[in-house]
């Protein structure tokens, strides 16, 4: 039985890719839908392509179920399955579409119109990752280039007068053999490091951290697409700053007050110790609710930024998440004092929906 589903399937996937582009915004806000699977496969659930029809509004229609429970007991009927389950209508099932990180980054880049990054600190090294485009006279038999080998043999036989057009037998001898070989390609290698700094003071709630988590995921995805190898460092701070690993970064409990300069100092130390700015492309992302301890400390932050951080890094991004407790003053302080710096990006992220715009602000400069 020969079935033609491949064609329809391919077509569907093409459309879905287009679909993702249109609705990317939605996927970024639906954080719970993003998860890593396997090595670098991410499964993003996307809605199926819904064909609009005249249907009853599922929320108004309700339905009939079976099972235990008092009146008023909430029930999980699944995404969109409330719609006439007794019928045969396919509901609005959520469909997971797998994309590689690279594909996702491409989509992200296209959608947000992100410019490719022009790295600094070029350091050319030769790598042998090149393609087999060269021909050598020696090599393993498995790489023998038959056509070239026979051409050589033909040439030799003609020169020697051993070639008979009536009876074109060509016998290569070992000198005739040619082998495919890799051509070394000069590939620039760039080093890049991303330093995430997060305020974990008492005023940062779990919702704010969720925003940071999502945003940093997308930033990571994009930068990893732009640079082959990338290092990430994580710094959390309340009144003091610590360098932590990734898991801790996203799980550490909030407490204490906020002294932002502690984090900036630690960041400075990390850069000086490990990442000399002339060799590294450095990205710093700082997320906070902007409620710093004192004006003095803010002045100190501005000083560190102006004197060390901004001259050293490609990009310093400050994302201010809104929390019910924060004043958000830090944002304005930075804006007033350093607003004219090219590689300082300020962004406000009041809620999940704003993540999209914020990423665009951060990465839209192509640095």
């Amino acid at each position, binding site marked *: *039985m020969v*079935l*033609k*589903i491949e*064609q*329809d*399937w*391919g*077509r*569907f*996937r093409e*459309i*879905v890719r287009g679909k993702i582009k249109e609705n990317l915004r939605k996927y970024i806000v639906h954080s719970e839908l993003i998860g890593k699977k396997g090595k670098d496969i991410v499964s993003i659930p996307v809605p*199926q*392509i*819904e*064909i*609009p*029809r*005249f*249907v*009853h*509004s*599922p*929320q*108004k*229609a*309700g*339905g*009939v*179920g*079976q*099972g*235990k*429970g*008092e*009146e*008023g*007991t*909430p*029930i*999980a*009927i*699944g995404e969109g*399955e*409330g*719609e*006439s*389950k*007794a*019928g*045969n*209508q396919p509901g609005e*099932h959520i*469909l*997971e*579409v797998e994309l590689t990180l690279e594909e996702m980054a491409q989509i992200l880049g296209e959608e947000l119109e992100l410019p490719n990054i022009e790295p600094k600190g070029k350091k050319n090294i030769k790598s042998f990752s090149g393609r087999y485009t060269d021909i050598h006279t020696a090599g393993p038999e498995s790489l023998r280039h038959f056509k070239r080998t026979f051409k050589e043999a033909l040439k030799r036989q003609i020169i020697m007068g051993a070639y008979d057009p009536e009876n074109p037998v060509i016998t290569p001898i070992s000198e005739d053999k040619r082998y495919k070989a890799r051509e070394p390609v000069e590939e620039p290698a760039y080093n890049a490091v991303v330093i995430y700094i997060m305020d974990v003071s008492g005023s940062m709630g779990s919702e704010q951290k969720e925003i940071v988590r999502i945003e940093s995921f997308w930033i990571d995805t994009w930068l990893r697409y732009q640079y082959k190898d990338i290092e990430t460092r994580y710094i959390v701070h309340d009144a003091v700053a610590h360098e932590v690993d990734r898991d801790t970064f996203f799980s550490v409990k909030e407490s204490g007050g906020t002294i932002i300069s502690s984090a900036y100092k630690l960041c400075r130390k990390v850069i000086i110790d490990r990442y000399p700015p002339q060799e590294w492309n450095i990205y710093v992302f700082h997320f906070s609710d902007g409620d710093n301890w004192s004006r003095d400390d803010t002045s100190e932050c501005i000083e560190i930024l102006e004197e060390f951080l901004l001259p050293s890094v490609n990009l310093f991004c400050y994302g201010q998440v809104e929390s019910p407790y924060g004043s958000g003053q830090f944002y304005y302080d930075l804006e007033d004092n350093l607003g004219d710096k090219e590689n300082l990006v300020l962004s406000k992220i009041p809620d999940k929906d704003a993540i999209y715009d914020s990423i665009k602000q951060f990465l839209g400069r192509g640095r």
Partner: protein
Amino acid sequence: MIPSEIQRYIEEIKKHALDYGLDFFEVVFEVVDFEEMNMLASYGGFPIRYPHWRFGMEYEKISKSYSYGLHKIYEMVINNDPAYAYLLKGNTDIDQKLVIAHVYGHVDFFKNNLWFSKTNRKMLDEMANHAVRVRRYIDRYGPEEVENFIDVCLSIEDLIDIHSPFIKRRHERKGLLEREDEGERKAISKLRSPNEYLDEYINPEDFIEWQKKKAEEERIRRKRFPEYPERDVLLFLIENAPVEEWQRDILSMIREESYYYAPQIQTKIMNEGWAAYWHSKILTEKVITDREIIDYADHHSGTLATRPGVINPYKLGMELFKDIEDRWNKGKFGREYEECNDIEEKRNWDRKLGLGREKIFEVRKFYNDVTFIDEFLTEDFCREHGLFTYTYNRATGMYEIESRDFKKVKEKLLFLLTNCGRPIIEVVDGNYMNRGELYLIHRHEGVDLKIDWAKDVLNNLSKIWKRPVYLETVVEGKVRVFSADAGAHRK
């Protein structure tokens, strides 16, 4: 090629099925691997369909779901003569036996249930034929063009009149003169009076007036287009929309396929229930061996599992059939039983009538889900099986149990099943405002439409109609008219 072992099961089970009185078309079994099964399922059971991404979408869903182990399609059977049934390669023997019995249940239902009587029994060929036609149009007009048009059609594919195969709704087209004559005659019809002075009593003035009024109404109605509101919107479009011939042909194919699938939706509960009833009957009474019983029970319970909030048609249907059989065996029906007020007596009621088997065969012949539920869902059954209605709570954003009241459950269930759970949409005017615009009415049954989608559908309709299209519906208790190009406005 069917493995000889499976062939043996088929023959054995077929014999039992015939002994029980099932009556089916010849069934052609094929054993397929999961990939083929997934593909066939994506194509709605048919090996050849016209090219369209939605089948790919189905495939994506089904194959993903299979590879994550979320579900597995054990069997598929298509309503055709001969019927085609696909068995999944690598299933255990007991699974295959169960599935084979299940298939015979379905085919018996296809063949005998009246709602299927008008379906095309050569649909396998017809689907292949559609595929050829669509491919030809693709060659001629380009894949984009054809696909875009199909996309538009799909959004209205369910706008058919599911009862029309059984009802003569359309009036024969009579010759124009004949109709004129008829009109004239009607307009002046007077009863004959023997004496002139009696005339004003036999034909009183208001009677004459009434007749005139009716004649006038009739005249106006005839000017209307369509004369009567048309539920078969697709047919109306095929006959009247200004589209290319090939587009008309695609519309008619889509409509034909819609009518083919409609009875399966109309009888989902019964059909699955019937098949489940028979696989359990045949297997437990005749086929399974002692060592297979656990695997059988495992599979069977999986088929009938219920989750809160979702009605499992297999379960509901099968239990109802069993209930009916039991009631008719014991004579738990009729006036005497209904009027008995003694709970104890009612519970132990047994007139030893033994009419159960006969009754369920009758039910599978004449009923569809709506009439089935309407007639046989009893209060006892509803309570015993814990049915409830649920509703959306705006405050919590969750669905929650609303009521276990029998009347409400039944009402809701019937609502969900009526017209396959789809809203009823009719064309009332194809020449609205005398500007050739299309006016549709949603016959509001208490539940509003999903408005954003409705607007998109209108848009698609206007692509076919090529003129503004209107939809009259009720939103939050107020009559509103939406139009395809200008958006919403209050009437």
